[in-house]
């Protein structure tokens, strides 16, 4: 499930580290939402990019704006529009890129990036995991094999939710295997 620099699932990554990682702690799975979940905002972005051109074409035919707007103001408005589009892209991309789920040989880590001003990170020990339930929903979920994995824990935070991760069944099995290995 690789997308060059931006994969959604990495099995045993060697070049990734996270804050609070212990010396003997090894990352087993590195996950984020499946890249397909980005399609909705990508389609909106394409529409937003095309909008000024569409409006200009419609205006040429229907003459909606009769007044003459100074050319430097028109150019500035175009530039400003595309700056807003870039802001929209950045906000959505960063939201996807930094919402990360990590499974290590000792912990489950859930790093949330809500928006540009708020974020949090939660760690749960593997021995606190009580049950996990994968759920694949919708046409895209079935086609691309991604879905949610809800993990019940005995820790302070009672539930960890891995949203729209690739191969949720595989992730669940991996967590169970790690738990069994740790118990032995």
């Amino acid at each position, binding site marked *: 499930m690789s997308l060059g620099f931006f994969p959604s699932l990495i099995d045993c990554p060697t070049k990734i580290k996270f804050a609070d990682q212990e010396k003997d702690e090894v990352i087993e799975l590195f996950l984020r939402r499946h890249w397909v979940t980005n399609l909705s905002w990508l389609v909106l972005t394409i529409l937003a990019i095309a909008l000024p051109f569409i409006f200009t074409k419609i205006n040429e035919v229907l003459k909606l704006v009769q007044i003459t707007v100074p050319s430097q*103001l028109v150019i*500035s408005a175009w530039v400003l529009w595309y700056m807003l589009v*870039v*802001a929209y892209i*950045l906000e959505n991309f960063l939201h996807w890129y930094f919402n990360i789920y*990590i499974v290590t040989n000792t912990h489950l880590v859930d790093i949330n990036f809500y928006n540009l001003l708020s974020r949090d990170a939660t760690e749960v020990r593997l021995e606190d995991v009580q049950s996990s339930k994968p759920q694949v929903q919708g046409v895209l979920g079935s086609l691309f094999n991604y879905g949610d994995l809800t993990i019940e824990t005995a820790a302070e935070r009672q539930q960890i939710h891995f949203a729209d991760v690739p191969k949720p069944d595989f992730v669940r099995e991996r967590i169970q295997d790690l738990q069994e290995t740790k118990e032995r």
Partner: protein
Amino acid sequence: MIVEGQVLSAMNPLQGVWVVANFWILILAALYFVFSLIVIRQIHLMTEIVMTEAAPIMRAFSIIHAGLALGIVILFIGSLFG
């Protein structure tokens, strides 16, 4: 001459509208620059929490992005009020 006079009188109230529009565009561009600074800060913090191969590229991109945003603010000042 009458037509010219009518056009000029119609243009004058619009001049005020253009000045206000220029100010708004400049304010929004300045806000965008502030947003780009927040992006730098946030990418820096997040890449400290999770260190991946793409982290240096993302940090570099955020700085270049803020530089471009500042450049656009200066460009707007020059083109709209120069």
